[in-house]
């Protein structure tokens, strides 16, 4: 394993030091990343968090029009209640706080515990579960939260900036999750610093279908194929669960080790696929947004837009990872 770190133990601290140094718009205190300037009176505050290793998610999306605070856990390990409690109390501007939680047992348990312990703040919570690779059934912990988390954070964040009340922000956040689906494919595994070696072995000629964002193996292993075919596998899985119709927000997301050029190749295929189904890519993102350390591969996330969601997506955002309109 070769990584640009000092020690496996200090990597989170060191990265947060760098993040704070690079972005004067952020403040880092006790393992929580805050938007500078303190709570916004009257504005619903958004708090998210989860294991580290998915950068820029979540800390990179703290700022105007998105999150008020992010709680980074250890690598692939959800944050502890203390972080979430601190964040929730610190960002509350009197209008309450929305917890955006990716659907993983650890994230759910820790956010639940935190929510119970801050009786003094009005807390609502939205669970993100967009990964169609996992069937939501009695036989699973339910669908994983992956790429749609970014959509939920951006759109709910824009609504909160508009001054909408907590219940409304929570409702729309849930709606975004319901209208979104994702599917991921890995070309390589990733290497967690503490583990020191790849989480799983993936031979030269094969890829993993239906991976999550924690280096966990996927649902199946198949031979490597051209971008066109891999894109089709992901899009068929999504289309089979939520038919592609109307205006779509589409993200082709890199898993961290895949260069931009390849993501554009995939995006070209995804766009053609969408057109083929008679739908339209109305808005898009191509890049590394919800990653899995140094994993090579991609995921596609699709959200069915309506006028309100489109307006909120287009609203100004100013964060290290996503910025437009200001």
């Amino acid at each position, binding site marked *: 394993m070769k990584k640009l770190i000092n020690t496996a133990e200090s990597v989170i601290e060191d990265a947060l030091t760098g993040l704070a140094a690079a972005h004067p718009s952020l403040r880092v205190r006790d393992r929580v990343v805050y938007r500078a300037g303190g709570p916004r009176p009257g504005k619903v505050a958004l708090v998210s968090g989860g*294991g580290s290793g998915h950068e820029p998610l979540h800390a990179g999306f703290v700022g105007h029009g998105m999150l008020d605070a992010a709680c980074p*856990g*250890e*690598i*692939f*390990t*959800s*944050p*502890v*209640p*203390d972080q979430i409690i601190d964040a929730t109390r610190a960002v509350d501007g009197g209008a309450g706080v929305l917890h955006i939680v990716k659907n*993983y*047992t*650890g994230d759910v*348990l*820790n956010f639940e*515990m935190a929510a119970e312990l801050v009786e003094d703040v009005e807390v609502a919570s939205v669970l993100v579960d967009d990964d169609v*690779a*996992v069937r939501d059934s*009695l*036989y*699973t*912990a339910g669908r*994983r939260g992956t790429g749609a988390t970014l959509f939920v954070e951006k759109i709910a964040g824009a609504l909160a900036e508009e001054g909408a009340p907590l219940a409304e922000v929570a409702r729309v956040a849930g709606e975004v999750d319901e209208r979104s689906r994702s599917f991921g494919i890995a070309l390589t595994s990733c290497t*967690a610093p*503490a*583990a020191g070696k790849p*989480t*799983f072995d993936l031979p030269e000629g094969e890829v993993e279908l239906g991976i*999550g964002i*924690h*280096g*966990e*193996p996927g*649902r199946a292993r198949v031979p490597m194929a051209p971008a066109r075919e891999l894109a089709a596998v992901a899009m068929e899985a999504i289309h089979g669960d939520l038919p592609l119709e109307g205006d779509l927000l589409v993200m082709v997301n890199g898993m961290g080790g895949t260069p931009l050029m390849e993501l554009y190749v995939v995006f070209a295929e995804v766009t053609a696929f969408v057109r083929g189904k008679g739908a339209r890519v109305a808005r898009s993102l191509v890049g590394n947004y919800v990653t899995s350390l140094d994993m090579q591969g991609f995921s596609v996330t699709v959200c069915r837009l309506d006028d309100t969601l489109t307006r909120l997506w287009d609203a100004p955002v100013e964060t290290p990872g996503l910025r437009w309109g200001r």
Partner: protein
Amino acid sequence: MDTEFFLAWLTGAAELVRRHRDHLTELDAAIGDADHGTNLDRGFTEVLQALDDWPPTSPAQVLLSAGTTLIRRVGGASGPLYGSAFRQMGKALETPVTPAGFATAFEAGVRAVERLGKAVPGDKTMVDALVPASRALAQAVQEGVEAREAFERAARAAEEGAKATIPLRARKGRASYLGERSVGHEDPGAASSALIMAALAAVS
């Protein structure tokens, strides 16, 4: 069973977790996200630290302190689960601690895990090691065997329960995402539960 006994248990558990850290992480790498060993090692190290910083004066305090530390320092799924288990055990523990009283408290701790995680035996989780351990403990106490023997039976039951997760298909936690592919691997949390019970049996 005095405060020393419970301190010795947690110290032993911390040592076993440290020694098996990489193995637990490898088990988690196979069907999870390769962090269970590091999570628990970090957690138990902090547990000993806290017990050292704020010396407890009763068995219940030892368990409450350990549980709180695990909740506050581990994260992930295992942090809240183990943390709540020790906290509930502490709350339910009556002093002076008798084997019977301990068995009752232990069962309360296991219940906390079941309540929080909503897992039942067979779901391929730590519950598959903890429930048999709890049953064996209660049974042994009923039979009136001496404590040491009771703990050894509980440890054996936990160990067997952990190994029994290998053929299972996971229905809870990350491993459930793998569906059929989770079959053939031991559940890391069940394995760590077996270690914690082994530490109990090893207290002398």
